[in-house]
């Protein structure tokens, strides 16, 4: 393979790979660490309290997620209700 690579010239460009990997992970981590995320646990707890006035749900029944899609922030709420309530 040494000889073949020698005639092909260039080796694989790992710098380009490094840059691409960094751009992806850093964009993700910047989104995670944005200060706006700090209110999420409180929002989750308050939603849980409000829903519990009407339906008994477990501590982990409310999931709140903030994502970024291009220029738009997407707030995703996922609330799991117990079976019997869902049937009514």
């Amino acid at each position: 393979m040494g000889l073949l690579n020698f005639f092909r010239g260039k080796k694989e460009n790992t710098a380009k790979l490094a840059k691409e990997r960094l751009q992806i992970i850093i964009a993700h981590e910047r989104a995670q660490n944005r200060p706006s995320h700090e209110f999420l646990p409180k929002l989750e707890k308050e939603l849980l309290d409000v829903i519990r006035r009407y339906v008994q749900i477990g501590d982990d029944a409310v999931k709140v997620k903030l994502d970024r899609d291009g220029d738009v922030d997407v707030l995703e709420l996922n609330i799991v209700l117990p079976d019997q309530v869902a049937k009514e």
Partner: protein
Amino acid sequence: MSKILVITSGKGGVGKTTTSASIATGLAQRGHKVAVIDFDVGLRNLDLIMGVERRVVYDFVNVVQGEANLTQALIKDKRIGNLYVLAASQTKDKDALTEEGVKKVLDGLKDDGFDFIVCDSPAGIEKGAQLAMYFADEAIVVSNPEVSSVRDADRMLGLLASKSYRAVNNMPSIKQHLLVTRYAPARAEAGEMMSIEDMMEILAVPLLGVIPESPAVLNASNSGQPVILDQESDAGQAYADAIARLLGEERPLRFLTVEKKGFFSRLFGN
């Protein structure tokens, strides 16, 4: 008016202490009164890089805890007037530093008329690193052209923007600078190392300078002479350029391209 400058990176081993020593020395060479403080309590090393390790009597923590005053703890550099080193404690626990304690020392230095206070941050994002950057006016984030270093630098930039005194009190934010160290132009040209353009595109922070990978850096630390004092060397000259830019002067970037060896230098070696 004193300016507090933090040298930070997140990742260890990228050249924070080397940079702190050279930036502090370079500013003092330009006639400014400078103090450089080692915030790495328990693992001090700035004293060695500055070549003052045998003259440490009192340290940063002694001053914070009132066991010594600033005049006793500041080590005056013998090469350059107006340059003082405040060593970290080697024995105390890293919890010995507190926000109030650090503020007291910084205020004391301001009262003593220091123009620049250079804070050499420990690695990581724990308390020592947080305190080193907390009161900063400007920050130099040091990064190698390597993935883990760049990622940590970005994390650090985020913390500078959100967890500092300036950020918490809604003041104008810390002025951020990027300093790339251990840059190897030949490897960047061969596509084996991220280029300066790549790093700037990812981190999006103004570039203060590029320090080339250089044997002069190890020689300097071996002998306890900040590398900026070696003006024969590429690294020393690159630090001098960075100082000029820090002071608002325009300097073109150097040492970014591979030096083409001429026929004679190839023949006779260097």
